């Protein structure tokens, strides 16, 4: 190890403290990240756009603010990476789709605005499954991102670029969106922490929508304290989002110390957890044992509606997506198909050429389930099942602080392994999807490794707006283990 630690390797709260104390500069932090990106991203393909000049300029501005004795905010000088669906004024946002090529956002997403206001420096945009549709970041017009723990494996998805970038220390913090597990599953695959807030906790304004009733932006962090800090910055009511909640935002960092004896965890029945990979199951059992050894109490919870979650999700999400993605037609922005004869052909060709296979599959599915004569059989029924799933979580969470689940039933899989079998791919979201349908918050933290050295994620689920419970339970586990400190051997020195 070198005598000094490069700033990009720090967690956000460590870096912010150093910069605030004058022991590091924003510019140095940004330079370290840019250098790391330069060295590693040809292999990882985690970033689809690096805003080098803008980032350095912004870091310089923050350093001058600090030098002048002003406080630019709780994330002053912290480099962050945003999934390529957060609108940032003046920057291209493509959702890793051909159809949005060249679209420069004229406005800031509320999350981007809040990050800027907190002093964070946006490094650039990260790779993702096109329009957030996928679990591997293979469905990207910019080519797949890779897992820093094993370059032959996927980083998960859809926010795979953000998770991979953070795991590889290309950035100090990262953000993604989670519609069916798109923050938690890549966090698990890449061995970082990821949090999906309660639906309505974080504004969706400026996040290119996949499925509006499920989408939530969430932070990736190197530890639980980072999640608490980052969530504090991005959470809160937004008058520009009618679905954002008016609930006040607590200081989540106040919940990092918890008394294990005061923690009750809900453990789903053995039946709910069937079909898991052997090594994932073992890591999960070990995590449960860790909590037990710490003195946490356990109750068994019934989540029987979970088995309908995947089917329900693929009706609700595709229905909303079919409508949300209708605006991409080549007329007003993005890519327009050349050489068309009339309006209909313009629509058809622009969409046929602009969207990838998975997006087309989901748009078709969603169009079908909303069609006259099928609405009740599919969409109407899915909405009723969604209500049952919500009820299941409500009653499970009435008797405990957090439900404990694996994040994904398997560790990171190989590139190409599931890409031709969408159903297999969809099943990797088994444990994450129902949380979005219920609208409750959940966190994924690293709870160990497989024999092959792949990280395994542990998921904690809390009642709506009880992110404090997630922080308590996750911090407790992290305090008793060292999995999160391990870094992938992506060495380049």
């Amino acid at each position, binding site marked *: 190890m070198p005598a000094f630690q490069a700033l990009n390797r720090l967690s956000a709260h460590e870096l912010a403290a150093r910069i605030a104390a004058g022991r590091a500069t924003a510019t140095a932090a940004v330079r370290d990240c840019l250098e790391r990106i330069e060295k590693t991203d040809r292999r990882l393909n985690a970033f689809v756009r690096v805003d080098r000049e803008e980032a350095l300029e912004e870091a310089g501005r923050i350093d001058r603010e600090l030098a002048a004795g002003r406080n630019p905010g709780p994330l002053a000088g912290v480099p962050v990476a945003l999934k390529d669906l957060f609108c940032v004024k003046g920057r291209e946002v493509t959702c890793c789709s051909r159809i949005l090529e060249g679209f420069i956002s004229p406005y800031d997403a509320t999350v981007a605005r809040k990050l800027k206001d907190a002093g964070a420096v946006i490094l650039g945009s990260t790779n993702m499954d096109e329009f957030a549709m996928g679990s591997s970041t293979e469905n990207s017009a910019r080519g797949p991102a890779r897992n820093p723990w094993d370059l032959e494996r996927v980083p998960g998805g859809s926010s795979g670029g953000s998770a991979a970038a953070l795991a590889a220390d290309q950035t100090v913090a990262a953000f993604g969106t989670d519609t069916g597990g798109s923050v938690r599953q890549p966090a698990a695959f890449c061995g970082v922490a990821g949090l999906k807030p309660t639906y309505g906790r974080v504004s969706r304004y400026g996040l290119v929508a996949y499925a509006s009733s499920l989408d939530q932006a969430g932070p990736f962090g190197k530890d639980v304290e980072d999640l608490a800090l980052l969530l504090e910055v991005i959470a809160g009511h937004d008058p*520009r989002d*009618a679905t954002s909640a008016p609930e006040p935002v607590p200081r989540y960092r106040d919940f990092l110390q918890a008394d294990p004896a005061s923690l009750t965890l809900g453990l789903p029945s053995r039946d709910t957890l069937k079909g898991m990979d052997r090594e994932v199951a073992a890591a999960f059992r070990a995590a449960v044992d860790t909590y037990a050894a710490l003195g946490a109490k356990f109750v068994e919870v019934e989540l029987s509606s979970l088995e309908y979650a995947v089917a329900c999700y693929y009706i609700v999400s595709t229905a909303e997506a079919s409508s949300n993605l209708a605006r*991409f037609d080549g007329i007003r922005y993005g890519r327009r198909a050349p050489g068309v004869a009339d309006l209909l052909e313009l629509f058809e060709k622009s969409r046929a050429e602009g969207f990838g296979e998975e997006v087309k599959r989901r748009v078709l599915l969603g169009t079908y389930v909303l069609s006259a004569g099928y609405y009740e059989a599919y969409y109407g029924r899915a909405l009723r099942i969604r209500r049952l799933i919500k009820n299941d979580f409500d009653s499970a969470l009435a008797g405990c602080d957090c439900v404990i689940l694996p994040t994904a039933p398997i560790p990171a899989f190989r590139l190409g392994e599931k890409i031709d079998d969408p159903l297999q791919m969809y099943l990797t979201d088994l444990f994450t999807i129902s949380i979005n349908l219920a609208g409750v918050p959940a966190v994924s933290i690293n709870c160990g490794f497989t024999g092959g050295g792949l990280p395994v994620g542990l998921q904690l689920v809390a009642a709506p707006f009880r992110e404090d419970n997630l922080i308590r339970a996750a911090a407790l586990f992290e305090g008793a283990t060292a999995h999160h400190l391990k870094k992938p051997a992506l060495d380049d020195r």
Partner: protein
Amino acid sequence: MSEFETVIGLEVHVQLKTRSKLFCDCPVDWGGEPNSRVCPVCLGLPGTLPVLNRKSVELGVRAALALNCRIAPFSQFHRKNYFYPDMAKNYQVSQYDLPLSADGFVEIPREEGSLRVGLARAHLEEDTGKLVHFAAEGFSGVDFNRSGVPLLEIVTRPDLRSPEDAYDYLKVLRNLLRTVEVSDCDMEKGSFRCDANVSLRLSGSEKLGVKTEVKNMNSFRAVERALSYEVSRQAELIRSGGAVVQETRLYDAASQKTFPMRSKEEAHDYRYFPDPDLVPTELDRVWIEEISAALPELPSAKAGRFQRDYELGFYDAGVLTSDPALAEYFETAARACANFKTLSNWITVELMARLKESDTPIESSPVPPEHVSELVGLIDRGVISGKIAKSVFALMCDERKPPSEIVRERGLVQISDESELEKVVEKVIGEHPGPAEDFASGKEKALGFLVGRVMKETRGQANPRLVNEIIRRRLSG
């Protein structure tokens, strides 16, 4: 009785009088440079979200109350999905199975008893943009200034039985909406639009016939004419053994005919579903009651009051209350006037004819209401005759002066001095001995001639009642 019964239903879209659009802060003023009143939200840019404008809900509720609709405590916006370049999102946010209000009615006042027109619903929706075609340059553009402008769609039940009913309904509806100040209802500025569904059925039959939808009518008269054309077209078609085809037809004002619209693809499946970006609208009873309590007097109540308080007939009261500004004009004038019937005549006949000629709304009348009251006072006190009053009124319009000033300036005061008039009568009898003798021998008709000559001699200023009296006295004596 005709062999067919006409069945008409109307769909009216009115623009709600808000300052900003339904889901964003952009202003809603009419006209302006294309795409000068747009923002990321009404342009439907990726990532943007709608937030409901509370004022438009309030105006919707006001309208619904005036339309006797049941207001839903819980309503919801749906997305109506279809591809068309005038739409920023390729879906329109509208209301579907949970509209703001439903089951209302409008009463068309008729002397023999009012006609009740049922309303299926009145719901909120956003307007779309507008396509602008540049034929010479070979391209089309989209102006999104209207995109997201709040509209209230008011749908009747098929209760109208003639094009005249439809015309009357539109007038009553516009009056109601203007009275409660929810819309300007200006067809020229697109703040009032009407589409019609029309079908025929054999008289006495209960079953509805095949309907056509008629669009592109830009005045109430155009609606009436388009429907008349459509009714006779359908009747001829059926009589000659043909069948009406369900289709959308466009009205051509120049030829006063309807033509089938170039058919847009197959039947649309709009795939309505609740807009997940908008939370359901839950309305508080108390709030609705507050809005209800603050509603102004509605036209039907006002017409009744005009009949009672001003002792006007059904017709006059109806005309005066057919427009809130007109009613207000009358009431302002009536405050300084004792003769309401005469006042009503001057306003509804002379003034309105004058305004119509120059296409001026009552709000910009060149004659203020106080001047009309003054004119009626001058007539009633015998200062000027009714005939002179007409010339005075014309001058009031042109010169925008009070009538007393015009009368004084031009010496138009009526001659009621008997001795002066007797001299003129003597002169006229001397010049026209024939008619004078005729009248003296009992031919009443000759009186008119003689009075006319006297009026002419006095340039219309003689008091005609007095002239009559003097001639009678003089010749029958």
